[in-house]
Each structure stands twice: as C-alpha cells, then as structure tokens.
C-alpha cells in the first residue's frame, strides 16, 4: 500500500474550511492533517486563520441563543461526569449500567436472585481456577522432568562428541579394564586412563586436565617391542582418542610401559 502524496498548497487552502467544518471523511481528514504538518509555517498560519474564521462564523447559523438554565445544567453534567469517571467502578456496576444508562431499580426478588447468581458464579469461577491450577502444577512438574531428561541427553551427546563414542561406552562399562596414567612432572595436574573393553573389542585413551591446543603422543611398548604410537590434539580439557588395537595388542597393554608426552618430548603422564 503506497502513501498518497501530500496535498498541494492550493488543495490545503481549498480544503481548510471543509476540514474545520468536519466535512472531510476520516481518510480525507487524515490526509489533510498530514499535509498540514508538512506545509510551510506561513501556510500553516494561513490555514489556522482560515479555519478559525470559518469555525467562528455565525452567518450560516440560526439566530438563536440558549436559555440561561442550560449553562448550569451543562457545567453540572460535565462535572458530574468527571467525578463519575474518576471514581473506580464497583464490580456490580460493570455491564450495561456502567455507561450511565438509566435503569429501573431492581425489585427485591431481582436483587435476591441477582445476589445468589453472582455468588454461584463466583464459586464456580473459583472452583474452575483451583482445578486449572492443580492441572497446571502437574503439567509444570512433568515439563520439568522432560526438560531435565532432555538436558541430560544433550549433555551426554556433547560429551560423546568430545571424547568419542568408544571412550563413553568403555567408561560406562563396569567390566572394562582401566589403566591409570599419573602425572610425571611438577605442575602437571592432568590424569589419564587407558580403557580396554574386551566385550566391545575397543580400546580408548581418556585424558583429563590437559589445556586445549596441546598435542599429545601416547606410546606403549613391552619386551616384544612397540605396541602403539598415536598423536592427538586436545580440543578441550577432556580428550578421548580411540586406540584401534587388535585383541592381542590390547592384551599386551596389561604389562606394557605406557607414556603420554608433549610433542617436544616432555613426559606428562605414565602408567602408575
């Protein structure tokens, strides 16, 4: 929808009397007002003068005058309305009577019935609110449980994403073997585990406490020679690395020397 262009000066001057006499419809009046505000100060002044002259012009009006009593009645009506509107409306007058409509006073039976109906309606409303509150609380409780489960599930997924599925599976398996790797230098607060799961045919390294960005090399060897040598970059303070060993190689880890070093050769962790 496009905005119509503002009225020209000539149009504004032509329509000024019509606007003052409320002869423009809502659309025309809005367009006139918008155009008025965009006009030059001189033109706005001229329009205000024209409109005041037209509005105050009595030549087309009947030569009648109001009676003197109308003044007091009108002022009293305004002041009474001001008082009525300023006072808060009592609940019982909300409805048709609120608009100042004159109503016949209710009979005794009407008052009695009306009062009982209000009471019954109030009880029903309170009952409905209590029932609604009960079900809302139950619903909130269930939503809480579902939210917790969803958060836990999300945390599990995130952990799995960081350390790898093998490490999570082996860490959760009570039958998996765990070889503890302890710190080997002052100031190193990391710890590691080699997790060996024979039932899952999987082996994984889990390192905790090494700063992100550090590259580590894990090596394992026994009397027969080197079993493994892998390098991994730590992306967070918890790092997992699937070692992908054959069954016989995994079995040799039981008696192997296992070390975790930085790329510069500094020994960080070793089998306890």
């Amino acid at each position, binding site marked *: 929808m496009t905005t119509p262009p503002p009225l020209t000066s000539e149009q504004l001057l032509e329509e000024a009397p019509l606007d*003052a006499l409320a002869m423009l419809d809502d659309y025309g009046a809005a367009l006139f007002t918008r155009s008025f505000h965009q006009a030059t100060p001189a033109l706005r002044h001229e329009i205000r003068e024209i409109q005041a002259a037209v*509005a105050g012009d009595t030549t087309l009006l009947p030569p009648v005058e109001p009676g003197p009593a*109308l003044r007091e009645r009108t002022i009293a009506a305004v002041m009474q309305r001001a008082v009525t509107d300023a006072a808060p409306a009592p609940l019982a007058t909300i409805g048709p009577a609120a608009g100042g409509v004159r109503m016949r006073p209710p009979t005794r039976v009407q008052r009695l019935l009306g009062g009982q109906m209000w009471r019954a309606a109030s009880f029903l409303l309170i009952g409905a609110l209590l029932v609604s509150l009960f079900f809302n609380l139950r619903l909130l409780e269930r939503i809480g449980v579902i939210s917790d489960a969803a958060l836990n599930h999300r945390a599990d997924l995130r952990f799995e994403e960081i350390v790898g599925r093998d490490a999570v599976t082996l860490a959760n398996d009570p039958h998996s073997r765990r070889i503890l790797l302890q710190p080997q230098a002052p100031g190193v607060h990391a710890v590691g585990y080699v997790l060996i799961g024979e039932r899952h045919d999987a082996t994984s390294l889990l390192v905790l406490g090494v700063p992100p960005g550090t590259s580590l090399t894990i090596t394992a060897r026994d009397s027969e020679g080197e079993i493994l040598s892998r390098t991994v970059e730590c992306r967070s303070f918890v790092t997992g690395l699937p070692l992908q060993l054959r069954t016989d190689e995994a079995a040799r880890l039981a008696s192997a020397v296992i070390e975790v070093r930085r790329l510069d050769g500094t020994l960080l962790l070793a089998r306890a």
Partner: protein
Amino acid sequence: MHRIAAGDEAAVRELYDRFGSLVFKVAWQFHPTQQEAEDAVQEIFIRLWQTADRFDPRRAKLVTWVMLITRRHLIDRLRRGSVRPAEGGMEEEPVAPGGGGSLHGPPMEAGDWSDGLRRRLAELPELQRTVIERTYLQGFTLREVSIQLDAPLGTIKSALSRGLARLRDRPATDWAG
C-alpha cells in the same frame, strides 16, 4: 484546555461562556427542537472535556477545535438516530429556546433566518446548493455526496467551497429579506 482536562470547574465555565452560544446555534441547526438541541449541547461539552487533552494549539485555534468536536458529535448523533434534518431543519418552524419565550439575542426571528437562508441557497447553482444542503446542513461527508451524485470528489469539494464562500459574502441580516 489542560485545566478542562483536569476537571477544573472554573475552566469549564469559561469554555461555556466563550463557546456555549456558538455550540447551541450549531446544535439547533442539526436538531431544531429545544430539548434535542440542549441535550446535544450537554453531550458536546462532555465530549470537549473528554478530548481536551488532545487539543494541539499548533494544529488549530481553540474555536476550530471546539467546532470540529461539535460538528463531529452532531453528525455522529444524527447517524445514531438515522434521522437527518430535512434541509437543515428549515422545513419546520424552530421552537423558541428557553422554555417557549421569544428568541434570545438577535432581533431576527429564526423563521425569518430559515426563509432567508432558503432564498439565498436558491440563488446558488444547483450543484453548490445540493452539496451544501447535504454536507453542511444534513451531515453527509463529501465522499458520501460524491457517490450519491455520481460526481468526482474534487468537483464536490470545489462546489462546496465556492458555495460556502458565496453564502458568506452576504451578511446574515440580508437574508431576512
């Protein structure tokens, strides 16, 4: 108007003293009976009090604002009642306000004014006369008259402006004949 919006009675009295007569004349034009015109005046002053805080002196002078609210209220009142004054009430003899005495104010009788206005309107070109009767005296909007007469809106506006200007060119006292 701020004082009126705040419910200051003295300000309401000042407003009535300044515009009560003018509002009554316009109300009479729309409702040419004593009771209806007086009821309308009371409603209009209540409406002026209700809308006082919206008055913007940069947009219009006070008299313009008062007349705008007055005419809008009277037009609404006519529409609610679905009754429009035939030729601005000129068909019936106005009743003297103030409970049946003679008319207050100008020496000219309202009936004379009515006859004078009718004669003056008759001197206008037909389109100007029709548009004035339907808008100024019966409360139709320009767009409504444009549809009724199947004429462009611009033509109706021009006819009304010119017609009103011609009517104002001649003093009201001349109309009594």
